[in-house]
C-alpha cells in the first residue's frame, strides 16, 4: 500500500483483515480472562 494512495476506496478485505489482526489476539485474551474469572463463581 503506498502513501498518498491513489485508489478511491479502501478494500473491505483490508479493513476486515486489519480488524482481525487486532481482534483475534484480543479475543484470545478475553477468553483466557473469562476462564480465569470463572473461578470467582466456581472456586
Amino acid at each position: 500500500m503506498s502513501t498518498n494512495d491513489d485508489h478511491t476506496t479502501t478494500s473491505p478485505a483490508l479493513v476486515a483483515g486489519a480488524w482481525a489482526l487486532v481482534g483475534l489476539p484480543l479475543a484470545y485474551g478475553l477468553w483466557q480472562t473469562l476462564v480465569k474469572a470463572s473461578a470467582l463463581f466456581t472456586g
Partner: protein
Amino acid sequence: MSRLDKSAIVAGPGYSRWLIPPAALAVHLSIGQVYAFSVFKNSLVESFDTSLTAIGWVFSLAIVMLGLSAAVLGTWVERSGPRKAMVVAALCWGTGFLVGSAGIATGQLWLLYLGYGVIGGIGLGIGYISPVSTLIKWFPDRPGLATGMAIMGFGGGALIASPLSNRLMALYDADFVSTEPTAVASSSALAQTFLTLGIVYTVFMLIGATLVRVPPGHGDDATAEHSPGTNGALVRASRAIRTPQFWFLWVVLFCNVTAGIGILEQAAPMIQDFFRENGDSTVSAAAAGGFVGVLSLANMLGRFVWSSLSDRIGRKPTYVMYLGVGLVMYLLLALFGDSSTVVFVALAVVIISYYGGGFATVPAYLKDLFGTLEVGAIHGRLLTAWAAAGVAGPLIVNGILDTVGEPGNLVAADYRPALLTMVGVLAVGFVANLLIRPVDESHFDDHAHAAHEDRAPEEAVR
C-alpha cells in the same frame, strides 16, 4: 525518514477511517503488556536473587517514564505525526525488552531497569499518545468512541500478555507450571520470553504504523483545518498548561486514577480479607484470582462503554458519574462491602469500570476544552497526573494498611480507613470537575483561530 513524516501519510480519497482504530489498537494492545508485568515478578525475584520491592521498581520506573515522556515529547509527537511516533514507540518498546532480556541473561538488574523501565517506558509514553490526536481528527463526531476503542486496547493488552507470557515461559522451561502460584521460570526461559515478546511487539506495532494515516488536509500543521473546542477554542499546549481548566482536569484524572489503584493494587488479598471468619477466608485463592480477572474485564470494557457514552451525554456529566457515583460506590464498599461477595464484586466492578473510563474519556474532554490544534501534546502533559497517581495511590493505601497489618491477614474493618480516604480523594476530583468552565478567549491561538474564522464563511457558502 520522509516516508514517516506527517506530510507523507495523508489519506487519499476514500481511505476508510475504520483502518485507524485497528492501527491504534496494534500499538495499545502491545504497550498494554505493562499491566501484566506482575506475571514475571516471582521468576525475576528468583533470577536476580533480590527482593520483590527491587523488582517492583521496574514497573514503577516504566510508569513514571510513561508520564514524563508523554509530557516532554507530546509536542514532538503532535508535529511529527502518528507514523513516526508509532515507529519510535515500537523501537523503544522492543529495545526495552531486548535490553531487559540481556540483563536477565547476564544477571545485571540495572540493565532491566534501563531496558524495560527507562527505554521501554519512553516507548510507552510515545506509544500511548501517538494515535490519540489522529483518532480525534478522523472521528470529530465521535471522539469518545474513537479514543475509547484505542485506550480499551491498553486494558486489553494485559489480558493478552499475561497468558501469552505464561505460555512462553512454559515453552522455554519445561519445569515451569504457570497454574502453580509459586512457580518460577529459569533465567534462560525468562530471557528468551523477553526476547520473543520484544520481537513480536515491535512487528505488531510497526504494522499499526503502516496502516495509520492522517485525514486529508492534515499533512501540514500550518494549513490544517482544526476542529475547535465547544466555545471555538483552539489552544496550543504551551498555553493550555497555563489555564485553570488544564489543572482542574489534572486533579480530576489524578483523583480518579488514585481511587482506582486503591482497589486494583490489593484486589486479590482484599476480597479474601473482606470475607474472613475466625482467621480463615471463605474466598479461595483461585476465586480471588478470578476476581482480579473480573476487574480486568471491567477495566477494559469501561474504557470503551463509558467513553462512547460521553459522546451522547457530554464529558462533564460523564465525569460527574465517574467521581460522584464512584464516591457513593466506594462509601458502600467501605460500609457494606462485607455483607455478601455479590455486593462486593458488583461495587468493585463499577468502580474499576469508572477507573478505565476516566482514562479513555479524557482526550475527548481535552478536545472539547482546547480544540484539536495540539490535543495530543496537551494529553501528553496531562498524563503526568497518571504517573503521580501511580505513586500516590499505592503509597496512600499501603501506608494506611501498614498500620493495621499485612493484606492477606486482615478483616473488612481494617480496610475502612483506606477506603474512606479514597472517598475523600474522589470528592476532591468531583469538585474539580464542577469547576471546569470553557477556556477564556485570551488563551486562543490567534493564527489558528483566525484561519478557522476565515474558513467558516467559505464552508457556509459551500
